[in-house]
């Protein structure tokens, strides 16, 4: 029930924020902050002291005949006609991603705090509903419910981009929505096909994830159905060639929107691959793995190259996101202990570093009203704190040892090397290219001459606090990744990843 509460608090907080607008433009953000803080408190309790919430036991798991380590499981009927029920559950992986979502929600609030003044009630409503939808995606264990939340998280995000976005917002918002929605419909057809194939073999109409897990499928059918899932998740991830929507959406979204998009929404794609695509279709996935890994390697290299050619700061960061998510794709389809752990670490670390970089880019745009790097330069002298943060998170994204991203990408490469040497060798070049484009950013934006005489305020206390929090997170992941690895391990084991 605690998971349902997490979502209900956000849903209610969103409505509350909307209503609070009539009392003054500053009220919605207070309401939103309260809701997110309450959620964060609950999540921290779940992480640190689950017994206080009565979550010590995993009794319900036994009833479902599942061996994995489920911390929380909640089940209730919804549409029994189709065997659709509310099944929410988190295990180690799910809990980490939920924590990431709520934490970045807080960061996004920080980013929006001084930026959104217009129609703020509706903005915070959408922000909180997106977060609630994402939490639903990370916790739903019924395929219908999963699809439901998959779509629910889109609409508020569409509004965020379409209303508070930048100059080309209509195009970007529309593209974002249509890409995701169409691939989502493809996934719906495949979910239904899977459910009916399962129904034909077992006589049991159900969308329950656990019951669908063992469905036997003919190889060709399995491959087709798997592809539907794969395309939906690869669009969201995104992987080349389905990445086309992302640079537009990210560069046009307001800062808080970019933070959520890059930090959280992309992870739903990776999560879908790990939780659904591979476990539901193990045979087809093995057959498909070489293709997927090649796609991963191409994503890493191609988008790194494209990023290098950008002059728009936010577009550049957007392309680097695709590049980093390529490592996740590579790791998931290598499907061994190191690679999977690496993929999970990359998801978490990229969540922090990309969110921070988008927040920086958004902050710069808010201050000097341009994203064009050719018009920047010499900002180090103007805003030293900001420059320091930029350097830190850029270096983190490049994969500096001691920070989270390094652990993730290193593990991915280590794992996939055992599976496919050639692809891995090419993929590892991505690390080199990343160093090039990242240093270019620092060079163009913060060094050199301040030719346009930009003067801007340095980081506010609120922003500084947000960056400091993310910094601590990345350092923790980099210096003591064991915390995360231990949490992910039971999940990965139960999904069938072989651990030594």
């Amino acid at each position, binding site marked *: 029930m605690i998971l349902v509460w997490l979502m209900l608090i956000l849903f209610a907080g969103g409505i509350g924020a909307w209503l609070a607008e009539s009392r003054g433009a500053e009220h919605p953000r207070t309401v939103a902050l309260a809701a997110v803080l309450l959620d964060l408190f609950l999540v921290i309790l779940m992480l640190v002291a689950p017994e206080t919430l009565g979550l010590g036991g995993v009794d319900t798991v036994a009833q479902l005949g599942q061996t994995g380590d489920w911390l929380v499981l909640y089940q209730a009927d919804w549409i029994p*006609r189709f065997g659709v029920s509310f099944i929410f559950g988190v295990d180690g992986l799910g809990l980490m991603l939920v924590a990431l979502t709520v934490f970045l929600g807080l960061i996004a609030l920080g980013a929006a705090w001084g930026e959104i003044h217009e129609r703020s009630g509706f903005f915070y409503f959408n922000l909180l509903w997106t977060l609630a939808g994402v939490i639903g995606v990370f916790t739903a264990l019924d395929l219908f419910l999963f699809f439901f939340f998959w779509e629910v998280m889109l609409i508020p995000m569409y509004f965020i981009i379409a209303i508070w976005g930048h100059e080309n917002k209509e195009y970007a918002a*529309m593209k974002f929505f249509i890409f995701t*929605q169409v691939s989502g419909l493809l996934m719906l057809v495949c979910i239904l*096909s899977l459910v*009916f194939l399962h129904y034909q073999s077992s006589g049991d109409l159900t969308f329950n994830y656990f019951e669908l897990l063992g469905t036997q499928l003919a190889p060709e059918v399995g491959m087709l159905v798997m592809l539907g899932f794969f395309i939906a998740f690869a669009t969201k991830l995104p992987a080349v060639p389905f990445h086309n929507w992302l640079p537009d959406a990210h560069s046009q979204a307001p800062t808080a929107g970019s933070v959520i998009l890059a930090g959280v929404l992309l992870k739903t794609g990776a999560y879908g691959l790990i939780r659904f695509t591979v476990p539901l279709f193990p045979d087809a996935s093995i057959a498909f793995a070489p293709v997927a890994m090649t796609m991963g390697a191409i994503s890493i290299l191609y988008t790194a190259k494209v990023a290098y050619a950008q002059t728009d700061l936010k577009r550049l960061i957007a392309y680097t996101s695709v590049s980093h998510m390529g490592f996740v794709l590579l790791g998931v389809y290598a499907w061994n202990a190191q690679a999977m752990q690496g993929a999970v670490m990359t998801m978490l670390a990229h969540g922090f570093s990309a969110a921070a970089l988008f927040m920086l880019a958004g902050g710069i745009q808010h201050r000097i009203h341009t994203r064009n790097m050719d018009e920047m330069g010499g900002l180090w002298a103007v805003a030293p704190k900001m420059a320091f943060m930029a350097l830190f998170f850029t270096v983190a994204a490049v994969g500096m040892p001691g920070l989270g991203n390094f652990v993730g990408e290193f593990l991915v490469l280590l794992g996939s090397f055992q599976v496919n040497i050639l692809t891995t060798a090419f993929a590892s070049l991505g690390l080199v290219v990343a160093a090039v484009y990242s240093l270019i950013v620092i060079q163009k934006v913060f060094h050199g001459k301040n030719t346009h005489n930009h003067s801007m305020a340095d980081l506010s206390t609120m922003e500084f606090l947000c960056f400091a929090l993310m910094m601590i997170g990345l350092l923790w992941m980099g210096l003591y990744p064991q915390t995360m690895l231990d949490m992910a391990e039971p999940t990965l084991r139960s999904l069938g990843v072989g651990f030594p």
Partner: protein
Amino acid sequence: MSSEAIIDLLQIILLTVSTVVVMITAAFKRDHGLVNALTQCGLFASLLIFVFVPPVLPLQVTPLLIFDEYSLFFSALIIIGGIAVTALAYPYFENHNQHNEEFYLLVLTGTLGAVVMACSNHFVSFFLGMEMLSVSLYVMIAYPIHSEKVAKFPLEASIKYLIMSGVTSGIILFGMALVYAVLGTFEFTGLAVAAGALAEGLDPVLLIGFLLLIAGIAFKLSLVPFHMWTPDVYEGAPVPVTAFLATVSKAAMVAVALRLMLNAQIFEFTQVTVVLSLLAAASMIFGNLLAVMQSNVKRLLAYSSIAHMGYLLVVVIAAALVPDMLSVESVGYYVAAYMVTSLAGFAVVNALSNAGKEMDQLSDYQGLFWRNPLLATVMITVFLSLAGIPLTAGFIGKFYIFTTGVEGQLWFLLTMLIIGSAIGLYYYLRLIYTILQPAQPQKDDPALGIIPFGAKAVMTLMTVAIIWLGVYPMPFIDTLQSLAGGF
């Protein structure tokens, strides 16, 4: 006639009585409010009668009409549509048009015709009901003819509908005649038996008869390529009549067509399935494509309705391949979802319009969200529901269509459905975007005025229904599952 038959006929009898009462009242006292209230009473009475007097089901009353859960369900939907239209018509015509009283007479006869269609399992009652509905519509479409500002369009629309619909009636009649010439029966179930007896060789005359019937039905449901009349008539007709046309008339035709398909087992002819598949695919693609180019909300909804009827046809085609229960359930759900969604949408248009001036241009809706959040929220819900986004009735409806399509393994049509939906998303999102854009200051902005009670009531109730059906559909699905008993 047995007392059971009388009980089952009560709904139709009440509608007929209301028509007479309204007619006499209007003849003696011309009072718009009074006539409107009387019509509402009559419609509510006929809707609720079976709550108090339990009907005997299923029962064939005369060879013409059958009463079962299926017919009652669709009759209820139709009457609810009638009630909504009556509620919308009052503020629309009041103070903006003269001699409004007869309009309600036509609403009642139209509803009556539609109910007869829902209860029909015989060519004669099918045709009678259809004509009663159509003739009422001819006049309803042209009703504000004395309102000088807008009179041109209703008249044009009415003439267009009159001619096209008249020809279609002829085509349907000819189809029925050919079928009768071969099989010698007018009863839907009798058709299947007689066709089975002829099973050894396919009679081309029979096939032509069925295809003519299908063409006629396709016209009434405005499927591509029989859709030409739809946008003009939707645009020209006054808003309440457009709502009536989009909901009541469509629901009645779907009800009778599905019963015909299932009872007469027309699917035995593969040619019929092929033709229906082509109609469905063309409607989904072209309906959505043409909608993209519209700048008038009513025209846009017309094209969107073409696409939606295409989606619905997927289920009808799948009916040959899946259990009757699933297809009837899907059609029932989809029609209900489509009706509540459309009624909510037309209620918003209606709230901004009257017989003197209609606000149906896209630009009229720019910034509506900031001018009148209530209307805009309803409108956005409507478009999300039409696009099939979760939390709305449209989502479960689309889910039903996908489910039925997958179970019937109609992969080609499912692909078309996905493509159609993608195009559909584009214009629904564009509309939502328009609504969300910054407001343009307008003089005499109707969105800032008071929303009339009728429109407000309809849109509130229908929006609640959209959300309720989308979030907790189970009770409604339970009802639907009993519908297939008659097949």
